[in-house]
């Protein structure tokens, strides 16, 4: 069984929801997710975030969907940590 343990994402999102609400929305997509959001750049209507998600088995599709629901756009997957089980 291959599990995604950590993802580092580059995300563009509108100002609303704010970083805290956005992190909460992402954390709600998994039972044990730890989400860390860092605002890298703020423009007139958008902000660029570095989002780190860690968990036992990250469901990337659900995470991607939650980003879209918040009006965000996934620009790139910058780091990935995956474990392979027996």
């Amino acid at each position, binding site marked *: 069984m291959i599990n995604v343990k950590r993802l580092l994402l580059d995300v*563009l999102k*509108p100002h609303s929801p704010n970083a805290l609400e956005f992190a909460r929305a992402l954390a709600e997509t998994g039972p044990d997710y730890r989400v860390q959001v860092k605002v890298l750049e703020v423009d007139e209507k958008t902000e660029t975030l570095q989002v780190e998600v860690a968990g036992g088995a990250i469901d990337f599709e659900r995470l991607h969907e939650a980003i879209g629901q918040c*009006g965000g756009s996934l620009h790139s997957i910058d780091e990935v940590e995956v474990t392979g089980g027996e």
Partner: protein
Amino acid sequence: MNVLGQARLWLNLTRSHGIARRYFVVNGFDGGLTMLGLNMGFWISDASDLEVVLNACLGAAIALAVSGVSSAYLSEAAERRKALSELEEAMGKDLGASAHGRAARWVPLLIALVNGAAPLLISLFILSPLWLARAGVALPLPPLLAALGCAFFALFLLGVFLGQVSGRHWLGSGVQTLLIALLTAGLVLLLE
């Protein structure tokens, strides 16, 4: 998420709490003052037919509600569409399926309902003594005077609500709107 949670999320996303509150007060005030003016007019004319008074006031209340719903919906829908399209341009993607897209479709309707319900509900409250009198309930005051009392009370409460919103003392704010109501009544009395 339940309906209230969704509505809160949409209002939050579009930062529309303040707009809904403002519409509630502005159109509620319109409804209260219109009913006050109408009832004052009937009172100084010595109108005794409650059916006529009620129908005239109810007609005005319905017109205010329809005007409130339609005007707020048209203006808010245009504003939300513009804001969404600007956001889509900044994001470089279609946000129709996101919470922002749903908020842009539903928030105008929510605000329109608030804008229409405020004058209707306040008017129905002010008209309640007339209904009670028509139903044969004995009132301590003549029905029109009781309705005028309800109008002053409703407008005072709107002031109290405004005071709470702004952080001012509730009594000062309530007295302020009450004075506006008294001024309106005084102006109508000049017709006599």
